[in-house]
């Protein structure tokens, strides 16, 4: 038992962080505001870094790595606010040809119950080559043209274009119900990894600001009220990170636990951590936190977007409760 990052996990995380720093510095990510399509060069860079293929077998063009490796990679992507259908394309790579190589961008949708009132939303539709619909029967694949969709003018996350789906046709069944459950579970865990990256990024942002910003002739970080806000941010991020890593390892090593319980728990805690930390980051920044300039809000909006894709917190908690 060694729950620290292995040397190659640490090296992969480090490489991914460097790649994000050079390819996705915050000013470049922010420059994508208002875009309706995913930047092809950026996507190619992600594919070349193995983001979509790393869990595929080497014979299938992948790196044959585990979910633990994927988790540390997605944590870095979350930290850097990298846009696009990252998790969906990654989990679809085992099904959709060209997803692993970056030729196809893929969307993932959980089929909602009939007679619903609230809309179903999908990101980056204009860039997608396929949409996978997950339901109790299994996984259905649809060409994006088959979906009746309407663009959302002004989405919450300024860096992610959204479409609202009017109808979701049946589509071809491409995998069974067991695979559908695995896809959804992996989607939970890797989305949670993105969220943990965000939770950490805003904790650091707030801590740095608390060291620099002076009021009453002292750094505000010397006031316990601010200090404790920052400490609580770290606790939330580290707790969520442990839960995401445990869930990822449990997918790779099924006999150490229940991967769905771990995945639902990780999704619950990482959503909470990312949203709560982004709010706390705004609070630590005071008025500046309410400005467009400080990126705290970009993390808040992205965290809201990603966590909304995991279903209601109440439901995730019930999944854990049922499997305790």
């Amino acid at each position, binding site marked *: 038992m060694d729950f620290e990052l292995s040397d190659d996990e640490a090296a992969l995380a480090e490489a991914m962080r460097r790649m994000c720093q050079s390819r996705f510095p915050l000013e470049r990510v922010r420059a994508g505001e208002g875009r309706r399509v995913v930047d092809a060069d950026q996507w190619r860079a992600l594919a070349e870094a193995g983001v979509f293929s790393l869990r595929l077998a080497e014979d299938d063009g992948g790196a044959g790595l585990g979910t633990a490796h994927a988790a540390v990679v997605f944590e870095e992507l979350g930290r850097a606010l990298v846009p696009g259908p990252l998790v969906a394309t990654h989990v679809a790579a085992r099904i959709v040809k060209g997803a692993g190589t970056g030729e196809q961008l893929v969307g993932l949708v959980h089929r909602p119950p009939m*007679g*619903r*009132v*609230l*809309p*179903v*939303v999908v990101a980056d539709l204009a860039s997608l080559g396929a949409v996978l619909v997950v339901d109790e029967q299994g996984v259905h694949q649809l060409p994006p043209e088959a979906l009746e969709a309407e663009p*959302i*003018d*002004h*989405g*919450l*996350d*300024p860096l992610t274009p*959204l479409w*609202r789906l*009017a109808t979701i046709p049946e589509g071809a069944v491409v995998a069974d119900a067991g695979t559908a459950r695995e896809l959804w579970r992996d989607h939970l865990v890797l989305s949670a990894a993105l969220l943990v990256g965000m939770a950490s990024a805003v904790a650091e942002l707030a801590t740095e600001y608390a060291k620099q910003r*002076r*009021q*009453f*002739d002292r750094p505000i970080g010397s*006031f*316990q*009220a*601010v200090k404790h806000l920052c400490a609580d941010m770290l606790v939330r991020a580290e707790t969520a990170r442990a839960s995401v890593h445990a869930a990822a390892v449990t997918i790779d090593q099924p006999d150490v636990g229940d991967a769905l319980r771990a995945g639902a728990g990780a999704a619950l805690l990482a959503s909470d951590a990312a949203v709560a930390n982004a*709010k706390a980051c*705004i*609070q630590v920044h*005071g*008025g500046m*936190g*309410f*400005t*467009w*300039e400080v990126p*705290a*809000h970009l993390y*808040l909006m992205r965290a*809201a*977007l990603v966590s*909304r894709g995991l279903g*209601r*917190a*109440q439901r995730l908690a019930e999944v854990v409760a049922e499997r305790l």
Partner: protein
Amino acid sequence: MDLRYSEAEETFRAGLRAWLTDTIPTLGAAPSPHDWPARRAYDTAWQRMLYDAGYAGIDWPAEVGGRGASPVEQLVYLEELERAHAPYVGVNFVGLLHAGPTIVVEGTPEQRERFLPGILKGDAVWCQGFSEPDAGSDLAALRTRAVRDGDDYVVSGSKIWTSHAEVADYCELLVRTSDEGPKQRGITWLAMPMDAPGIDIRPLRTIAGSNEFAELFLDGVRVPVANRVGEENDGWRVTMVTLSFERGTAFVGELLQSMELVGELRALARRTGAWEDAAVRAQVGRLGAELDALWGLARRNVSQAARTDVPGVGGSVFKLAFSELRQRLAQLGQDLLGAAGLSWGELEADDGSGPLGNARLLDVWINSFSRTIAAGTSQIQRNIIAERILGLPKG
């Protein structure tokens, strides 16, 4: 303890309600929040209507042209305006609720004569130049400097978080006129004409995507000494005095609007089926109970102000509790909206039952984050409560 309104209060309410019933339908559509000139025109026209009907400066003394209403009448006024969905005070905010009251108490007769009627009639719009990039919670650290030159002060520096600067006629400005003694000492209060040369206004984009605030850059702006309210270096006291005008009615409009919001959340939960979930009902019920309690606290604070004519200590308690509650309320709205909460544009329900109300709930959510920061962060409010009410020693 008596929660019934007196006959006089009910008469006041009935008159106001009748006037609102007649007047509100005559108003045009509210302008886009991004169109400042249209907002000024709309808000000041509404102020003029209030003025003509005798409701301008509801809490201002009659001798300066106000209604001279009691705190309880002021509460009734806010209730009725909220009930009628009347326009918000908007660009008249600083004039009616901050600069005007300051001039009422601290201005000379000439200054009152010169500045107050314009505020009441909607002819003059004011903005506020208090905070600076390095003087936020620590306002007294402000560094915008004014140097006396003949009959003028020459002002240079910068201000931040100024609302309606683009359409304001005057700015209530705090400047540093002395570095001697404690930093609170060397501050002076000026009414700066916004058409004076040397003022550069730069909109400040907020996380809501709006330009609700601006930064002011002041470079050698000349402000006549005649525009100074109070003595030189006495501006901190002048500003604090304004707070004594507060009669427990701050945030009451928003509180009442929040109660309406809870009703909307209940309706939304019923439409989506979330109401079947006992946990959702309990969350809504708890928020409702807390709002009821804060409505009690607001009426207590107003009653105290009515009896003693000084603001109760309850203001910080109310502000802290309400701003935190408002965030939870706004978050519940987002939780109930699911993916619909991701769109700023209004969406229709998938079952054909009409608009979901998501645009407004998203707006409430985004703006809720400023609630625990603006007008004193929650951290500062807790310090105030601990030190001024409980008497705990300064840190």
